[in-house]
């Protein structure tokens, strides 16, 4: 990269990689400790003529955060001088927690949400005990189940593995 390219990039994002990097910073509205990129919701950024087309996929069909995420994407692009943008939702390939990186899982854990994995591997995010019980298979958001630690008695969310 030449110096000239670098200096122009500071004003207006020009490449799709730069635009994606901007969008990758957007936190998930319901679990703000990880981004839509880390969750695997942000799938693609493309150019269609003069328009930027961002493709996202929902964690669950009925995830109520999708509309807010669309709005955040449009707002982020507009704040960076990109007005002509469209957000597309796709269902295939179906979202899976397998897309989540180890780093993202560690962030969830530090936040108090047990990361996705097998049920046997769930540890209490507070005291690391594996003596945990499922209180409800469905939790405060579509992507989580409600657990309780039998050792320290702390209730916590578990990010469901699908």
């Amino acid at each position, binding site marked *: 990269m030449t110096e000239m390219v670098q200096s122009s990039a500071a004003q207006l994002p020009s490449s799709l990689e730069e635009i994606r990097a901007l969008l990758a910073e957007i936190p998930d509205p319901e679990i703000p400790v990880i981004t839509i990129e880390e969750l695997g919701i942000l799938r693609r950024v493309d150019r269609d003529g003069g328009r930027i087309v961002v493709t996202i996929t*929902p964690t*669950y*069909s*009925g995830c109520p955060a999708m509309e807010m995420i669309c709005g955040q994407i449009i707002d982020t692009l507009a704040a960076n001088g990109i007005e002509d943008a469209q957000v597309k939702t796709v*269902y*295939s*390939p179906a979202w899976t927690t397998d897309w989540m990186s180890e780093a993202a899982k560690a962030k969830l854990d530090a936040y108090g949400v047990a990361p996705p994995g097998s049920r046997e591997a769930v540890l209490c995010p507070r005291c690391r005990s594996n003596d945990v019980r499922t209180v409800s*298979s*469905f939790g405060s958001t579509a992507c989580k189940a409600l657990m309780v630690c039998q050792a320290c008695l702390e209730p916590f969310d578990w990010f*469901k593995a699908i």
Partner: protein
Amino acid sequence: MAGLPTAELTGQTVDDEGLFRFLVGHADDNLVLAQRLGEWVSRAPELEEDLALANLALDHLGQARALFTYAAEVQGEGKDEDDLAFLRTEQEFTNKLLVEQPNGDFAQTMVRQMFFDAYQLILWEQLSEVADSRLAGIAAKANKEATYHFRHSSGWVVRLGDGTDESHRRTQRAVERLWRFTAELFESGEVDAAIGRGIADQAERWLSIAEGVLDEATLTIPDDPFQRSGGRAGAHTEHLGHLLSEMQWMQRTYPGLEW
């Protein structure tokens, strides 16, 4: 926009009108069930179950929205998912009769859910393999959700059926009330056969899944062979009109109102 062969799904050609009716039928199943489950919010036996029922409703609503959006595009009349959900009459709704049945008590809601989840497990699995990639994508996603739903609903049916005398009595009563709406799940017309690769021949598989749960729950299938039908033709039980009048009243009273 009938007549244009748009979707070659299994070698047989389905025209836009057929595909539209197919998508709307399945969307209606999910929307009506979502509305029913939503009626439980703030009324469930415990907080955790309140959340669970709302989560089930949300998944069904999401599935309905994806199907309605696709249907509206196929229809090509400039309508959207909201037009299809809020501005059609009872006779224009084509959901199967099981999903419009009232919640009753918690046992009845869970038996209805288990019957429907077992059906959707099979349905989504079949549809996730059709040539129409958009429909297959919606189905593959929904299949994961149905798997999770079935685990929950079948677990409750076993717990209630094989529970106390009172919970057994109520769950058995629910099976007797709802069994007559189960054969309709596997009725299928020409379009279903072309798109859905003949779900009709899957009834046996459903029966073995449902029977497995009922056996474990110490519940019995009613002797009465009577079965109701007519949902896909818009001939509903007396319950759907009331459900729609509540769900649609805002758009009917304030046309075009937006949040």
